[in-house]
């Protein structure tokens, strides 16, 4: 992905990935939804999600980065800050 992306558009496609590949329903999705506690992702899902996000953004997610990410909003913020 090149150029600037608004936090809103990042949020939209992060949610797309969650719905398409992790069977998350619209009802479960909100910026404050916790990836593990609310969306039932596990550590293997976290790796798969980061791979998808890396493909999409060209960013690389390190293990420390992943540890700091808890909610969907954290994912969006992480990407928005680095794409700026």
């Amino acid at each position: 992905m090149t150029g600037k992306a608004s936090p809103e558009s990042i949020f939209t496609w992060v949610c797309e990935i969650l719905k398409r590949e992790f069977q998350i329903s619209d009802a479960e999705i909100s910026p404050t939804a916790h990836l593990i506690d609310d969306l039932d992702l596990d550590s293997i899902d976290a790796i798969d999600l980061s791979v998808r996000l890396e493909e999409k953004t060209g960013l690389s997610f390190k293990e420390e980065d992943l540890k700091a990410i808890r909610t969907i909003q954290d994912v969006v913020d992480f990407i928005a800050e680095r794409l700026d």
Partner: protein
Amino acid sequence: MSRPSPPPLAALLGRLRRASRALRTGLAFAIFGALGLLLGLVLFPLERGLTREGEIAERRCQRRVSAIFRLFTWVLRGLGLAEIRIRGAERLRRPGTLAVANHPTLLDVVLIGAEMPQVDCVVKKEAWSNPFMRHVVTATGYVPNDLGETVIGACAERLRRGRSLLLFPEGTRSPEGGLGPFMRGAAHLALVSGRPLTPIVVRCTPPTLMRGQKWYDVPDRRMCFEIEVCEPIDVGDVVDPGEPRALAARRITAALRDFYHERLHNRNA
């Protein structure tokens, strides 16, 4: 108002029986502890003296653990504490079996392990720093419950070498009479290794040694274990090609949990 009548003889006898059962249960725990010491202090050092580290030493130590578990099942039967019935145990003796089980009591791993001369387990990683557990988990080559991807890799590697594996998808003991949420590790492992899942259904009546129950909180009658080793499930039949693994693992796990729910529910009904 009349005085409360003295307890009838039947109630007294019942209390006596319960006390005797609690005593025998205590004895069984003591014997289990002693067998554990025998393993750690005698059998494992002996094996290590005879064989160098590595695959062969690990398999030999696992065989010792299984023998100790089998001995303990005789103790349970001999003390009149448990009746144990197993169907389909021959399915567990095929090399490279990927077995999963529900986990109603503390004894499941002992009773299943007694039927598997070689079996790897995933154990809490704290065991590797626990002075009582450390030598058992290192000598047997059990898998520490670390990050998901690492555990799957270590388990898949063991299956590739023809070693069998036992997993409890609930990750902990089941809630009374039911099933906890299933973790998806077993499904991921089946996907990665291509091995079918062999489900083991464990039933125990009356419920005993459950999570949060004290050992002396014994039931009023002998525990009856029924262990059924079911037909292996080939996950390749369930998965669509090209499906993301996260989705496939979710579907397999949901199907597996339904399978257990059905088996446990229909029997109770």
